[in-house]
């Protein structure tokens, strides 16, 4: 799976920013697990397509739907563009690491 697009979609009321990340395949539960490593993750597997929301200690929130090719991240207003670029790079590294087992597309 590859990250194919990063798109700013909204400036929120509190000054935070909402960015969408699009992949060339559906997000897997394994990928979600890696993103959530060490963080709180609310996961709702009972929905027709499961929803997740990750709350990282650095204030970043990530949410998406398993099987959907995109996810959204909410960056606190204190995050700079450089911080956001670092997060995109983190995503690419995660996707390029074979042993994470996250490259299997959702069937």
């Amino acid at each position, binding site marked *: 799976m590859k990250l194919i697009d990063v798109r700013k979609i*909204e400036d929120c*009321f*509190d000054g935070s920013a909402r960015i969408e990340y699009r992949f060339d395949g559906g997000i897997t539960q394994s990928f979600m697990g890696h993103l959530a490593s060490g963080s709180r993750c*609310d996961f*709702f597997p*009972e*929905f*027709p*397509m*499961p*929803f997740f*929301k990750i709350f990282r200690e650095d204030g970043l929130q990530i*949410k*998406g*739907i398993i099987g*959907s090719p995109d996810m*959204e991240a909410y960056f606190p207003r204190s995050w700079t563009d450089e911080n956001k670029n670092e997060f995109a790079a983190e995503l690419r590294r995660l996707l390029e690491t074979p042993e994470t087992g996250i490259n299997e597309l959702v069937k």
Partner: protein
Amino acid sequence: MPPLVYLNNAATSFPKAPGLGEEVRARIEEVPYHAGRSGGPAKDPQRSCRERLSGLLGSSDPARLVLTSGATESLNIALHGLPLEGQTVLSTAAEHNSVLRPLYLLRKKKKIDLCLVPCDTQGRVRREEWRRQVREKRPALAVLTHASNVSGAVHPVAELFAEVHESGGLTLLDSSQTAGLLPIDANRLGADLLACTGHKYLLGPPGTGGLYVRPGIELAPVFVGGTGVRSDLQEMPSEMPTRLEPGTPASALFAGLAWSLEWQEQNPFSFSAMNDRLGQLESGLQEAGARVIRVDGERTPVISFTLPRWEAADAGMILERSFGVICRTGLHCAPLIHESLGSLPGGTIRFSLSRFTSDDDIAQALDALRCLLHETH
């Protein structure tokens, strides 16, 4: 994945008028017509659109109807074209950013004093405060949305505008949420200027809209350029609507809007049936445990609510991606109204129906909501 249910008609309608796509495509693929420039064999699409839209808004003179790209352009043409320098403009907390941002810009440039009247808990402007501000400030212009795009509450426009006229001001109505839904007569409502958009309840294509300008009101052109007539002049021609329509028009889109308007004339819908479905939806939401923003009296088929334990944006994502229910969440580009509605900071989830919304659509949306609310956090 269940079938898609589209409940975001207050943003843009779907589906559009049957045959609209074919009409737009046919107009793009034929030899173009442009009055005053290259006639060609085709009929004049702007003329047909202008006549129908003008009639819909209660005007007998199509020349007073400026064709635009939508309500945002219409509102900007009006607000930047009126001689408001040093004057007070009155508006409300119910307005969309298409009204608020041009007004903020005029205020920032120190051209106007801006007075925004707060709303009640249903999203209507507070009548006594409106009256007080009209009497005290004697605004040169009052700008009002016909109906809130967040709560659906319809304003008593004729009464509110009558007070402005009594104090000597002009009036501008934003009918983005009502044109195609409610009967609109600019004269009866007391609207000196009236902005509308084609892509919502008029069932036309995005990129179309109009601005009605009452006879006797002159707007300075905001955009200037070629018109195909009086090319010898250094300024825009004085004739309406040419004066306010520079550049090559989006003929195929206006042909599409004319098509949609004609289809609506031939296929009137039942507002009461749509209201019945809105009632079913509202009851179902309340039974499921949603906090519904209650609206008494006249309203559009829009319903806003919040859910316990769920952020509006999260619920919207789940409804769309997991249950196939397309809706809108957040502030809906109307940031000020949420203080009155008690829906800050996350805004609301908004379902907006159209004439095409079915009972099955309502049932599927309510099933999804129940599933969401019965899920434990």
